[in-house]
């Protein structure tokens, strides 16, 4: 059986810098739209998110970014989220002279 | 706006009501039709299927009448003038989409060539038994317009009226032919295209962003757009607000449904088409429509030759029903006979409008054969004696 590996890790390469590696991406959460299904937490390939203890106004448990440095902006959270409440974006690469 | 000269079959023709109806629809600008074969209406779509490819139109024979009755609404929202054609059993299947057309204010024309029912009933024989169904057949409160022609000429003339009214009022308009009228051969004079008034669909002039599909900007009709104009509209059969978005509560329902009904009822006078003949001072007035009115005219003539004072009112507009018109008749005659090819449908409306002002008699028929003029004449004599 071919295993489908949809939410795949991008295997971030170790940084050459001595500073902690900058996150490649970022997840944005619209807390009031969230219905607490936890798909973003379970299917995040780099374990950026965790269900936190906080509730939104409707009383749904919210996901929280617990490992921001691990986010590669793959947007798997955004694809799974049935409530359009979260999405991930890749951070702009800083290039000399580039945008 | 005038009809397209390339499409209008100008001239004098010897054709039946079904073909005249098809030619009238073409003259009115109809370029899409969806239908399903059903006697006695089939010749309408057969003629359409022959003519449309030469006129830039498309006919599609759908898998059933349910499909036909919504397929043509899809084409209408795509910007076309369109119709569907059927008879009683098919009409029963279409009821769901009569409601949809009423709710979404789709300018739709339903041609119903009536036959005897209920159920499969009398496929090849006439009836006038759908007149209440078109008014009440779909669930909920709504209003429609229904016209009943009584000759092949009127099939041509008034199907154009039906299309024009659909565009003006954005309601389902029923064209209530019957087997006799549909299959009646007669002289049909099709005028020059520039003699035929055609009401084009009026699209909003408001730009996207300043337009809501169900807002009333003036009068009592919303302004229409079609798919693809950039307005990004939404329509739904659910109770909705001015944006077309579902809004399901008693207030929204009250506002919407009353408007849908009143936009027709408030124009009953303008919508009334009829012919009245020597009603004032008559001893009895015959009220009839469609083929029965045609037969009644002969009986009335016979009665007059025998010295009887008989009037006639031929209803062309069946819905909205004009109470004022009937009350006026009751003011000016001493009794009323309603003749119709059913066991009494429009007679209830007449009795409601007349009250106890004058007696209202009924000549009924279960369908299958026209009401003979002798029957009407006999009833006239019975009533006036």
């Amino acid at each position, binding site marked *: 059986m071919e295993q*489908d590996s949809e939410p795949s890790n991008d295997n971030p390469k170790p940084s050459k810098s001595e500073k902690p590696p900058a996150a490649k991406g970022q997840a944005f959460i619209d807390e009031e739209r969230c219905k607490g299904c936890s798909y973003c937490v379970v299917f995040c390939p780099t374990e950026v998110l965790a269900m936190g203890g906080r509730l939104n106004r409707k009383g749904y448990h919210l996901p929280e970014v617990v490992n921001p440095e691990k986010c590669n902006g793959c947007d798997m959270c955004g*694809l799974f989220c*049935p*409530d359009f409440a979260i999405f991930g974006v890749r951070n702009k690469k800083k290039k000399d002279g580039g945008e | 706006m005038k009809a397209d000269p390339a499409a209008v079959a100008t001239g004098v023709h010897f054709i039946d009501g079904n073909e005249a109806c098809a030619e009238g629809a073409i003259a009115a600008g109809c370029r899409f039709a969806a239908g399903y074969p059903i006697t006695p209406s089939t010749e309408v779509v057969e003629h359409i299927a022959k003519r449309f490819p030469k006129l830039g139109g498309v006919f599609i024979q759908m898998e059933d009448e349910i499909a036909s009755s919504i397929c043509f*609404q899809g084409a209408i929202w795509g910007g076309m003038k369109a119709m569907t054609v059927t008879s009683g059993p098919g009409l029963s299947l279409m009821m769901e989409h009569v409601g949809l057309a009423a709710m979404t204010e789709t300018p739709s024309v339903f041609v119903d060539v009536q036959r005897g029912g209920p159920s499969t009933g009398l496929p090849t024989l006439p009836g006038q038994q759908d007149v209440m169904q078109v008014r009440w057949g779909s669930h909920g409160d709504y209003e429609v317009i229904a016209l009943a022609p009584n000759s092949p000429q009127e099939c041509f003339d008034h199907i154009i009226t039906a299309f024009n009214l659909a565009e003006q009022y954005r309601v389902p308009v029923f064209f209530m032919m019957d087997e006799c009228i549909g299959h009646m051969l007669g002289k049909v004079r099709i005028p020059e295209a520039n003699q035929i008034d055609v009401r084009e669909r009026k699209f909003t002039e408001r730009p996207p962003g300043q337009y809501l599909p169900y807002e009333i900007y003036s009068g009592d009709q919303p302004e229409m757009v079609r*798919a*693809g104009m950039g307005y990004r509209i*939404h329509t739904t059969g659910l109770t909705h607000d001015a944006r077309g978005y579902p809004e399901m509560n008693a207030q929204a329902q009250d506002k919407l449904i009353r408007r849908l009904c009143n936009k027709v009822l408030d124009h009953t006078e303008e919508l009334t088409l009829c012919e009245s003949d020597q009603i004032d001072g008559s001893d009895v007035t015959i009220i009839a429509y469609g083929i029965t009115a045609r037969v009644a005219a002969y009986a009335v003539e016979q009665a007059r030759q025998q010295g009887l004072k008989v009037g006639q009112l031929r209803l062309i507009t069946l819905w909205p029903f004009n109470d004022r018109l009937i009350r006026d008749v009751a003011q000016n005659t001493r009794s009323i006979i309603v003749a119709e090819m059913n066991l009494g449908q429009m007679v209830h409306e007449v009795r409601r409008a007349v009250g106890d002002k004058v007696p209202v008699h009924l000549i009924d028929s279960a369908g299958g054969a026209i009401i003979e003029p002798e029957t009407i004449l006999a009833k006239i004599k019975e009533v006036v004696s």
Partner: protein
Amino acid sequence: MSDAPTNSTPTNPVEKLLRMERIPHIWCPGCGVGTSVNCFARALDKTDIDYDNLHVVSGIGCTGRVAGYVNVDSFHTTHGRAIPFATGLAIARPEAKVVVYSGDGDLFAIGGNHLIHAARRNIDMTVICVNNFTYGMTGGQVTPTTPYSAKATTTPYGNFEDTFNLPNLVESCGAVYVARWTVYHVRKLIKSMTKALNTKGFSFIEVIAQCPTLYQRRNKLGDGVMALQYYKERSTVQNGAPTVDVGLDYQSDIIVGEFVDKPRPTFMDKYNTRMTEILGNKFVPYEGVK
């Protein structure tokens, strides 16, 4: 689409497609329909389709509400009748892309007759069927896709009827493109949706999706996460698999993939060809509303 700006918060890419004033939507927590909409939005971004020329038609039911949330000309029609409405619309608007977005009950039970004929005629439309094996909106009744033995409110002792194999049925009727994915397969679903949207003719995608509230719970299958885990663990990608082999049983393995991709002339192509052959220059083709 821009990458993450540094100062302002970026926008969820799905929002471009949505009528945001209508969000939050009515779907239950964990419902798979929203996930399919995410994929639809991303797929659209990969096509050249102008939103003003995209029309979405839905029937009735949970998935039938999609039409109400997408910010394009959208038509929420009657139960089962999205396809015939879309047929009229697609013929009237040859320059538009018409998408029917509806559920298994709507498309295959009450709307089954329309679906098979639209596929036969090869009407130019994309049909996205979210198959959650139940009627969600009315409270969890049996549908033509509810597997044998699964419980529904109207099969309290377990379903005893046989099911439709949707890809096989649709292929048999003449669809030019047929695929099936689950909502776990988001990336592949996007790819298939993109392909379907770029395909002329009747394309069909079955999207297997969880209904945690009614199907999962009634069958004691756990929550939405467990449904997605099941899709992950038990799905096999078999592109080109014979559709006759892709039927589903209760909690069985799921064969997913792109099964059919064989173009043929559309309804209007054939109409135009035939009429040109027979009528010659007397034929006036329909060219859309001016």
